[in-house]
């Protein structure tokens, strides 16, 4: 059973993100290359965590579909860095699951020549505790 009692402070501590720095410009969601695949979008992560509305994010599809390409982090004019916060929500879930979904030794088998290196690193970041 997923512990949904993750607080805003927990997420801010894990990510180092200060949600109050956001000026709600929407640059993150304008930049996001995988916007349509996410049920919650980068700017919503900042807004919802800021308001303490965290439970829906823990159960969202977005934490797994986020490419962690860091485009939103790179472009954010206020250095809020949404990608870090999405990562923190993901970690809050991954750490509860008790097992790694991906082991380093399985990687060579899964490799696809067309897959960018970044995606592998990203997958590892997502599915390993």
């Amino acid at each position, binding site marked *: 059973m997923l512990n949904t009692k993750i607080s805003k402070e927990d997420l801010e501590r894990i990510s180092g993100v200060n949600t109050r720095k956001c000026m709600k*410009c*929407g*640059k993150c*969601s*304008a930049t996001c290359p995988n916007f*349509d695949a996410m049920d919650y*979008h980068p*700017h919503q992560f900042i807004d919802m965590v800021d308001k303490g509305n965290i439970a829906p994010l823990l159960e969202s599809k977005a934490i797994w579909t986020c490419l962690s390409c860091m485009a939103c982090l790179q472009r954010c*004019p206020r*250095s809020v860095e949404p990608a870090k916060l999405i990562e923190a929500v993901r970690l809050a879930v991954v750490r509860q699951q008790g097992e790694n979904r991906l082991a380093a030794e399985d990687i060579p088998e899964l490799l696809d020549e067309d897959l960018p290196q970044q995606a592998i690193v990203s997958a590892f970041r997502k599915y390993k505790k």
Partner: protein
Amino acid sequence: MQRIGVFVCWCGTNIAATVDVAKVAETLKSEPGVVFATDYQYMCSASGQEIIKNAIKEHNLTGVVICSCSPRMHEATFRKTVQAAGINPYMLEIANIREQCSWIHKDKEEATEKAIILGRAAIAKVHLNAPLTSMESPVVKRALVIGGGIAGIQTALDIADAGFEVDIVEKQPTIGGKMAQLDKTFPTLDCAACILTPKMVDAGSNDKVNLYTYCEVDKVEGFVGNFKVTIKQKPRYVDATKCTGCGECTTKCPSRKNPNEFNMGFDNRGAVYIPFAQAVPKVATIDPDDCIYMKTGKCGLCAKVCTAGAINYEQKEEFITKEYGAIVVATGYNQIKPTEFEEYGYNNYKDVVTSLEFERLMNAAGPTGGHLLRPSNGKEPKKIVFVQCVGSRGQSCRDKSYCSKICCMYTAKHAMLVKDHYPDVDVTVFYIDVRTPGKNFDEFYRRAVEEFGVHYIKGMVGKVEEEDGVLKVQASDLLANAQIHMDADMVVLAAAIEPDKSARPLATMLTASMDTNDFFTEAHAKLRPVESPTAGIFLSGTCQGPKDIPETVSQASACAAKVIGLLAKDHLLCNPCVAHSNETLCNGCSTCANVCPYGAITYEDRLVMDKGVRETRRIAVVNEAVCQGCGACTVTCPSGAMDLKGFANRQIMAEVDAICR
């Protein structure tokens, strides 16, 4: 022994909330020499000043200590107060228990203790204070305005109007500045040229105004009322006194591939050029980097066609030195080139332009004659996207931290003008916030939306890419919680504005302070907004911060009023806290003269009586009218002969002792 009165100010709650003011007054009462101590809610108010005056008379005070805000705030006020009650104004000391105590502490007990210590130091100093009298220095009744944009022109015209001579130094070949490049001006949509060019003509023809165009300030010496400025006249290679501005040379010049700066590089100009038809002065200038004759020694066509014989390839730079009573900084701004924002494709696509470039494309006197055409193919655009806050309001290294202030309004203006001229064109503006404070400003923006049908979308553009000659814009629409993809023929970037690059070296020359963004700092954000903290230096226009034209002109006139106030005086009271040398200690080594930034120290041979021996010695002499009391000489003097009146070494040491007691 001095008879000292101590007055502790509450400053409302500014001090009293953090410092136990009654306790401070009570404790300081037992300091040696203190015969009276009290506290009051607002010492600077009329009734507060009355308390001080009455106490001086009642208790025969010889010195006064006021525990209040910074002396930068009210030292002058309180000096007048004690003087009115018959005490020399330099028998007053201020202990800063606001900025340096109550504002920076939270613990009341600690803050109170510190306030007492600061008061004690001031009391210790007053014991050693001596009455000082100010000298007078004459005022040169001429002003220098650095920068000939709308700010500089307005300030100069207003100063000239009051009957004072004023010189404008402008680094470009013509005055006019950025406003000359604009098309229409918000919120009334009158054309910039129609309202600016008459002012330029006024400045050019007013016999109190001298224009030094194509000139730069090279050196500044002196101080308020008596500045000596060296102006560098860059060579035009055209004799400005002979040139009639007929423009024959500019049309015949065979070097034609030089980007025209005035049109933001959208067309070319000759090597010899007049920036624009209404330039003042209307004199040609040769750019030596573009001129075929200057580079190869062959051509000389302009000299052949010039009937006035004004072309002079041998012209050299000249230096002019003049004296001024006041200096006005009006160096203006530039729009940043958004080359670091690769997501907008400014570097790659011709149809992505900055708003100043767009201004030229819309301008009747611009490269397209006011016919809006896509720079890439010369066709009329059907869809235009405007992006606001490009490079403003950010924290990353490519952003400016401030709001550029003018972009919301000129973007609304551009959008409205496009819809007005070409109603079929689809116009979308991406905004973070629409900021339109100002008279008739919000109404203007609402007209763009409601009457002209401009689409305003709350969100940002994340990516611009070109595909088959169409710009593909990816953006967010935050109110719809959606990412949108739209086609555009042109993208216009409201890029941030920044102070002109010449501002920082100029600030160094003027010893005027700047903020981290290179905007000049005003003496007081609210109460002295057009003066620099450096006496005699005044600020006009965007050199002080982002401003639109109405605000710039208001500030320019305010600045002129301050300059006129200074020039109207025949004499200025000098700061009496100046250096002086003790003739029995001075060994004439010249160390002090070498460090003096004002050239106030000279030497004379003087007959000195020292320990019964009479001899002629070389002694440092301070010109009190020139000395600014910076104290550099007192710390450098190896024999301790130099000392500062009002800030003598023993006074400073007494303060330190009082603090350490």
